[in-house]
């Protein structure tokens, strides 16, 4: 029963091939046996999973099952989960048992899904490799010498290793799409405001967005049906009807207009990735799409703009970790300032401290106009590029990442080199647009992702475009050797 998609598991449960409890037990056993190789979970919620699975079986027996009832899901350890440690990959929250559920968790619970555990991640979602986690890096099941990507690296590794059929992730600058690309998965970052951020530990509030990570576009659509929607508890969530994202997956693509931004096929792009992305676009032409070259001239500026906006918001958001109300507190503080400084100095890892300091510097007296305001103006230019192009084409396609998964340790010594990994994903977050990564081939045994970008609230179109590709190709069905 393992190795099925969410849709396949839903069918198996409906037809009584196995029960929710049997399914949960099988996944929990596999996590126990295999996760030492991948370090994809920070916490396995065995007791909770078995309780929820038993409740799901009972509700099915009573005739009250929905499509999600009894389906196991892993959640990124950034979503607050009542009664469960929610660490955000940080020593700062290693002792934090959340007193409440994030809206995303509450919705999955209400839909009847089963929480397998909380997945590993870069500390406070700050990273592109999962190497900044306090709990050690997660490893890529395609090659355990390589990173699974980040920051939702544990979610990606868990799905790729068959330890969970699907997982939640969050994406501030590529943290769903890049690990999805590195681990041969389908990942969707929704439009800013589509999914509630309530209870999702904040990194950069004007960029953060939760979304699904799955084996197929169909599974991602099932999950987004649960996750999307206005939430009175998140003032930035958008009041707008939620369609059934599975309803139009099969719509024909005849006449679809695809734009290929020339800036995404620049010199920094690995030539094998360029070839695979172009081959995927040719496949779309065979499905009836037309293709034209477009230009997003401010793409390169997304890296500097992001590394002001995100650290500035992080320095503000993370000021709440002061050792007073929850989380880590240093031993024997001499006075209040000593407590703040040592709590934060000891509780945060190096990358988090670095970004807090960049943000603090950018927001310090006299620098606001030169940094934060300037970055917000560049955001506007980046958004205007997208708005112009998306008035001419239906979707934009390109690579998700400039290279396949790199080796552990390869980019840790130079943060700027690590930041350049996100060159193709950052601009969407700055503009607030939705984007996906889907598998489109292999380079030296490592997966390659195709990025698909749509207009605001075009998630349904993106999922349709991704699903049709997955009906015509089998890249997404490839699994790491031995799995």
């Amino acid at each position, binding site marked *: 029963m393992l190795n099925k998609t969410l849709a396949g598991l839903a069918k198996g449960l409906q037809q009584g091939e196995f029960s929710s409890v049997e399914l949960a037990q099988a996944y929990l056993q596999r996590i126990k046996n295999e996760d030492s190789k991948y370090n994809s979970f920070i916490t396995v919620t065995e007791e909770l999973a078995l309780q929820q699975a038993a409740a799901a079986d009972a509700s099915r027996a009573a005739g009250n099952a929905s499509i999600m009832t009894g389906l196991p899901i892993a959640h990124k350890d950034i979503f607050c989960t009542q009664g469960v440690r929610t660490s955000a990959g940080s020593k700062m929250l290693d002792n934090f048992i959340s*007193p409440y559920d994030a809206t995303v968790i509450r919705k999955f619970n209400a839909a009847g899904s089963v929480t397998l555990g909380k997945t590993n991640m870069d500390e406070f979602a700050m990273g592109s490799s999962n190497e900044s986690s306090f709990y050690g890096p997660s490893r890529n099941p395609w090659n355990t010498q390589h990173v699974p990507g980040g920051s939702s690296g544990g979610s990606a590794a868990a799905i790729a290793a068959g330890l969970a059929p699907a997982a939640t992730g969050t994406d501030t600058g590529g943290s769903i799409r890049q690990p999805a690309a590195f681990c041969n998965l389908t990942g969707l970052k929704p439009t800013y405001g589509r999914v509630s951020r309530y209870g999702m530990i904040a990194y950069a509030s004007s960029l953060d967005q939760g979304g699904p990570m799955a084996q197929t576009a169909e599974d991602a659509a099932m999950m987004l049906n649960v996750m999307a929607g206005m939430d*009175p508890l998140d003032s*930035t969530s958008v009041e707008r009807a939620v369609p059934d994202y599975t309803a139009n997956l099969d719509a024909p693509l005849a006449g679809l207009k695809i734009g290929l931004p020339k800036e995404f096929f620049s010199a920094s792009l690995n030539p094998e990735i360029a070839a695979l992305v172009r081959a995927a676009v040719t496949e779309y032409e065979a499905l009836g799409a037309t293709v034209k070259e477009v230009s997003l001239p401010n793409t390169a500026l997304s890296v500097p703009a992001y590394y002001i906006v995100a650290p500035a918001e992080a320095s503000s958001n993370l000021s709440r970790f002061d050792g007073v109300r929850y989380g880590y507190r240093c031993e024997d503080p001499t006075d209040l300032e000593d*407590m703040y*400084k040592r709590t934060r*100095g000891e509780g945060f890892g190096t990358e988090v401290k670095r970004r807090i*300091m960049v943000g603090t510097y950018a927001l310090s007296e006299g620098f606001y106009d030169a940094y934060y305001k*300037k970055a917000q103006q560049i955001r506007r230019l980046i958004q205007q590029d997208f708005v112009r192009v998306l008035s001419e084409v239906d979707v934009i396609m390109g690579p998700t990442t400039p290279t396949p998964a790199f080796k552990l340790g390869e980019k840790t010594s130079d*943060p700027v080199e690590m930041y350049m990994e996100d060159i193709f994903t950052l601009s969407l977050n700055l503009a607030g647009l939705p984007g996906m990564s889907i598998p489109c081939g292999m380079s030296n045994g490592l997966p390659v992702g195709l990025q698909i970008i749509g207009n605001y609230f075009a998630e349904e179109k993106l999922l349709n475009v991704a699903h049709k590709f997955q009906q015509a190709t089998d890249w997404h069905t490839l699994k790491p050797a031995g799995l």
Partner: protein
Amino acid sequence: MALNRTDVEKIAHLARLQIDENDVPEYAKNLSNILDLISQMQDIDTSDVEPLAHPLDAVQRLRADIITEQNQREHLQQAAPAVENGLFLVPKVIE
């Protein structure tokens, strides 16, 4: 933009972060490199560009002025490092 030891120590103080003295040169180097990356923005003329704070230029929603939260003090304080009589304990602030 090269930051020196004094700059790093000042920023760390503003952010209330204790940085080990031996780590300061490494922070200075990496933060300087990050600021160099960021300085690419300064080449672009943005004098007539409206800053973008929210991608959808949304405004804050209003709601009815009624109480929606319940008092959960005891429940929420279970996560606190030190509490007494419903108060958060911190080192002495006033002499």
